[in-house]
């Protein structure tokens, strides 16, 4: 299977894209400001919970159990959803999911759709597929709408337009809504967006949404949000299509008690989301009279095999790891070249694509552990990053080019040195002499090859004349005299 996550196939490697992002001062200020605000709110709302760690344990356990018996719970969800009047479709990959959606939209005679809360649709590039099929998609989540208007890419899992400030947004609204009088006053912008979206909510007959949770026990689907635009999108159209990744299923309604506490606190620092929508199938005379679910695999089932990899599917897309990540906070989300950015993106995107794309992402971390600390379902992201680095290294070493890469040659040589104290001591003496070639005003400068990445920006104290073990030996000799 050829899985893509958005536009990863053509994305620059992380170090290259990050360098570009770092040069954009406005972007960095916006990202730092937004992540600081959410982080502070989150810690306030987490610290007031005496059972936070137990909630994390419970969330982790529910997800681990569900993923272990995913086949069972998916089939149960399908049965219950259909019994309640919904229709369930299974999509192996992006192509199948988009084809199902297009076929359904044509069947119901639509040429436009309103969309909300479906990052998964970005994963499969649904908007582009719809447009090719002559269907116009309108994003109705405010931030998604801003991203769509700017022909932009999302830069955060929860707040996709976080890299934009209100002045940029005002400019975009003036252009796209033909409202030249708009100022950047937040109330005015919100009201303009409301007018613009209301008209579409009233007109468009087909809606497409994502899901935070799909409940196997009842066949219900749950979407949480802050704006109410999701509620409009889910209730107003005649036909509703929910695109749901297979990992979103949970066994019972009671399991929501855990996630509806941890998700809003982790995502936006709220005790509860302002809008929690939960619906089951079709209710005659109320809301959409046709309800379809597309269950999407797109590489997910490959992750079920190994424990370490399966854990990634526990993610509830709260984005807390992004806000906590010191790398993400410098670069923003677009440097990851994948709609799933930050620490979770760095493990999810490469795995969904069987490491065929996004290969630089597992290295885009210092392994500082801030992501793991805040994760509400306890995904050990640093451990998974190391695991993926191992897989990538093994793959590289199986090719001649990889075997002969300067990094591999250096790592093999250093490994040999570490295995022999005698060689190690000789290497210490050699390094002390070799460094003389690169010394300038008492510092090591201009190191060659990959080590140059250090000395280009940072000073380095020369290796001292005596190693610790030489000091130890000398001391021993003195004492024995």
């Amino acid at each position, binding site marked *: 299977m050829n899985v893509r996550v958005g536009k990863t196939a053509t994305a620059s490697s992380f*170090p290259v894209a*990050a360098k570009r992002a770092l040069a954009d001062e406005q972007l960095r200020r916006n990202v730092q400001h937004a992540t600081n605000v959410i982080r502070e709110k989150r810690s306030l709302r987490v610290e007031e919970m005496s059972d936070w760690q137990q909630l994390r344990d419970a969330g982790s356990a529910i997800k681990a159990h569900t993923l272990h018996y995913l086949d069972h719970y998916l089939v149960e969800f399908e049965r219950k959803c259909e019994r309640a009047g919904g229709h369930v479709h299974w999509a192996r990959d992006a192509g199948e999911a988009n084809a199902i959606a297009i076929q359904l939209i044509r069947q119901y005679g639509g040429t436009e759709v309103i969309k909300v809360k479906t990052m998964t649709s970005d994963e499969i590039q649904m908007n582009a597929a719809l447009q090719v099929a002559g269907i116009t998609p309108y994003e109705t989540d405010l931030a998604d709408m801003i991203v769509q208007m700017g022909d932009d890419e999302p830069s955060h899992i929860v707040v996709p337009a976080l890299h934009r400030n209100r002045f940029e947004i005002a400019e975009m609204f003036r252009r796209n809504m033909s409202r030249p009088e708009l100022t950047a006053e937040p109330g005015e912008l919100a009201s303009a967006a409301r007018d613009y979206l209301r008209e579409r909510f009233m007109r468009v007959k087909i809606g497409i949404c994502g899901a935070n949770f799909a409940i196997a026990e009842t066949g219900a689907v749950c979407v949480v949000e802050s704006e109410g635009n999701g509620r409009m999108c889910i209730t107003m159209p005649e036909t509703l299509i929910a695109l749901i990744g297979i990992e979103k299923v949970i066994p019972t309604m009671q399991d929501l008690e855990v996630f509806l506490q941890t998700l809003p606190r982790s995502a936006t620092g709220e005790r509860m989301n302002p809008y929690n929508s939960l619906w089951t199938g079709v209710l005659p005379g109320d809301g959409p009279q046709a309800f379809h679910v597309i269950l999407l695999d797109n590489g997910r089932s490959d992750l079920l095999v190994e424990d370490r990899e399966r854990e990634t599917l526990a993610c509830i897309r709260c984005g807390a790891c992004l806000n906590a990540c010191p790398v993400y906070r410098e670069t923003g989300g677009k440097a990851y070249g994948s709609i799933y950015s930050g620490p979770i993106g760095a493990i999810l995107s490469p795995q969904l694509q069987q490491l065929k794309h996004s290969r630089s992402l597992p290295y885009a971390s210092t392994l500082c552990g801030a992501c793991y600390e805040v994760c509400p379902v306890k995904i050990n992201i640093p451990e998974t990053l190391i695991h993926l680095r191992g897989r990538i*290294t093994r793959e590289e070493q199986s090719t001649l080019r990889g075997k002969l890469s300067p990094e591999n040659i250096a790592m093999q040589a250093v*490994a040999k040195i570490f*295995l022999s*104290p005698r060689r190690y001591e000789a290497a210490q003496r050699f390094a002390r002499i070799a460094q003389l070639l690169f010394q300038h005003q008492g510092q090591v400068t201009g190191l060659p090859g990959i080590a140059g990445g250090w000395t280009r920006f940072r*000073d*380095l104290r020369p290796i001292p004349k005596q190693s610790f073990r030489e*000091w*130890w030996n000398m001391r021993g000799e003195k004492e024995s005299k």
Partner: protein
Amino acid sequence: MRISLFITCYNDTLFPETGIAVTRILERLGHSVIFPRNQTCCGQMHYNTGYHREAIPIVRQLVDTFRSADIVCVPSASCVAMMREHYELIAEAGGGPSFLEDVRAIIPRIYEFSELLVDHLGVEDVGASFPHSVTYHPSCHSLRMLGVGDAPIRLLREVRGLTLRDLPQEEQCCGFGGTFAIKNPDVSVAMLTEKQSAVLESGAEIVTALDNSCLMQIYGGLHRAGSSIRTMHLAEILAVDGSSQ
């Protein structure tokens, strides 16, 4: 007590003064220090960069070297984190059952330097005197993986003449991250720049930590920027003997 010192490869080569300081402190407290000659590296660089197969024999050698040690003292939080978090996984993946048994036997006897003093030996005042202002950078591995808590701060509080200064945003990574620093130099330096500003804001003369790797990064930035703020491993501060001054 007989304490075996695992100096770690980069301390041995680049920061011998840290090992000398650890030795002096432990001896001053009446312990005898042993330095097994066969030690080299804990395997962290290979393992964290993805060279898992290559890390196995390095780990095997280190475990063999310290097999008979009563207590192992390691003046590097990240190396201790490597041992505690990954050695069992490595032994499970790449060795016989005896390897795993050896790993399980040695892990509980391995202590990071400040853990050894405060948690195991119950010492907070090591008789040091250091009349300077100091700020403490809690390295990510000491903070989140080892959970050393306030052990280093308690040790610093007992040092005569020392003024402890708060480090703003102290829990933020310095951007070192092993091979991250050279694979992603631009991001690494952007993170370092933030840490540097925080250090300057603290107003301290000296930055200390439990990891010379982070201190090497912080030094690299400060020195390039022409700052006179010095970096010192916690042990080097604690080694300055108060009674001889």
